């Protein structure tokens, strides 16, 4: 139990640490890039930072949305499962670009008609849309992991007197979180790449930095190659977590 929570915390910490390292790697190597790129490295760094921050905030939001939606589908309490299902159908059945537009352009107007004057800037809109979107995918990954756990586990937990909620928290959740790691990582990598869509509402992230430099210099090859390389470094970092998790699991078994 505790070891599963520890692994999840170490995982979250490692992802943040790795992202910082990846960012530093990019920062240190940019001056060695061709002159066109090196001269505007501040633009790329700004974009890279924005991409990482967008991904990070959407990951945190998406994690909680994912668990909440998976839980709503499992408990089937007061029709929560229909609400969760509607959410999943909407987020998986419409383009992410449209979802970003809806949150950025339409949501403030809808809220205003209810008397809520909340301004949503392009940053918040992008993070919210990305977080909700990845949350829907996380929920499916998490539910798959839950369903893959042998029925006997809950049966035994219940026969030992644990309540439904205790069974979920102490028996199912830790096992599911280990199993959901790989799909979570793929979803996070997809999220990192999808964050490029935030450029459509004017967030200056990595891909917008690339296209901006292209239009400034009329040299698409170095600009876009740099953008692609930086994305590769970042997605590579996400998948570095997998071997770390393996090491942690082996360490746990090896101690005893």
């Amino acid at each position: 139990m505790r070891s599963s929570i520890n692994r999840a915390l170490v995982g979250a910490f490692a992802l943040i640490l790795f992202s910082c390292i990846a960012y530093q790697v990019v920062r240190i190597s940019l001056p060695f890039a061709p002159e066109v790129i090196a001269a505007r490295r501040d633009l790329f760094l700004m974009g890279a930072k924005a991409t990482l921050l967008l991904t990070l905030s959407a990951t945190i939001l998406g994690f909680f949305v994912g668990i909440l939606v998976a839980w709503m589908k499992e408990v089937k309490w007061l029709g929560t499962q229909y609400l969760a299902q509607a959410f999943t159908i909407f987020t998986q059945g419409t383009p992410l670009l449209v979802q970003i537009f809806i949150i950025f352009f339409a949501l403030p107007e809808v809220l205003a008609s209810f008397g809520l004057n909340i301004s949503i800037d392009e940053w918040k809109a992008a993070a919210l849309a990305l977080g909700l979107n990845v949350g829907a995918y996380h929920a499916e990954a998490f539910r798959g992991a839950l369903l893959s756990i042998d029925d006997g586990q809950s049966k035994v937990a219940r026969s030992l007197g644990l309540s439904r909620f205790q069974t979920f928290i102490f028996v199912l959740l830790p096992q599911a979180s280990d199993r959901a790691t790989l799909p979570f990582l793929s979803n996070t990598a997809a999220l990192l790449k999808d964050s490029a869509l935030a450029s459509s509402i004017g967030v200056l992230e990595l891909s917008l930095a690339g296209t901006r430099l292209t239009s400034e210099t009329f040299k698409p090859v170095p600009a876009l190659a740099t953008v692609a390389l930086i994305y590769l470094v970042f997605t590579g970092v996400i998948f570095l977590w997998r071997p770390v998790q393996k090491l942690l699991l082996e360490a746990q078994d090896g101690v005893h």
Partner: protein
Amino acid sequence: MESTKTVYIELRSLGFRYSKHGKFLFRGLNCKFQKGFLHAILGPSGVGKTTLLRLLSDEILPTEGEVIKEGLGRQNLGVVYQGLHLFPHLTVLENLTLAPRKVLRMHKNHAEVEALRLLQQFDLHGLSHRMPAKISGGQAQRVAIARALMLQPEFILFDEPTASLDTDRVKVFADTLLDLTKLDVGCIVVTHDQRLVSQIEIKNYSKAVENFLPHTGIPA
């Protein structure tokens, strides 16, 4: 064997069928299970032994008749399933202490002392920090029994407990059952394993479905 309160499980004209108009799996079962005794429910596959066990553990409800549990609370009835189902993400020790800590609100240290005492008793003391994947089948079974014992049950139900054990282990398991009855725990064992049956020397063994009745075994 003198307990101040009367604790027993009684079946009164118990009947069960899975569908509303289907055939009865069994009907008119009358039987009394007592603490400190070993009861074996015998018969070949498909006569409803496991169904009876599920009725006893309240997993399903009877179609007819009733299961009376006199003096028994929910956690007074332990179940050791065929698959054992140790919690794979917890160490052996944590497997034992989870339910007492969360259900009985036992203090962690107290629960661990109690768990280590049981592990010692079951010859498992060296394994307390192992993960379930790293212990043998026989050990896993004793861990599952110890886990059920942590809640100080009056009865323990066993579903085909010897299915995956070799003959030597079956003997050890039969000894364990007898030890449990000496602790004044009632054991109800569902089995069709002839080796176990001969080990616990139950004479009235019958394969016939009509005679499918829980037989009272040997007292402690």
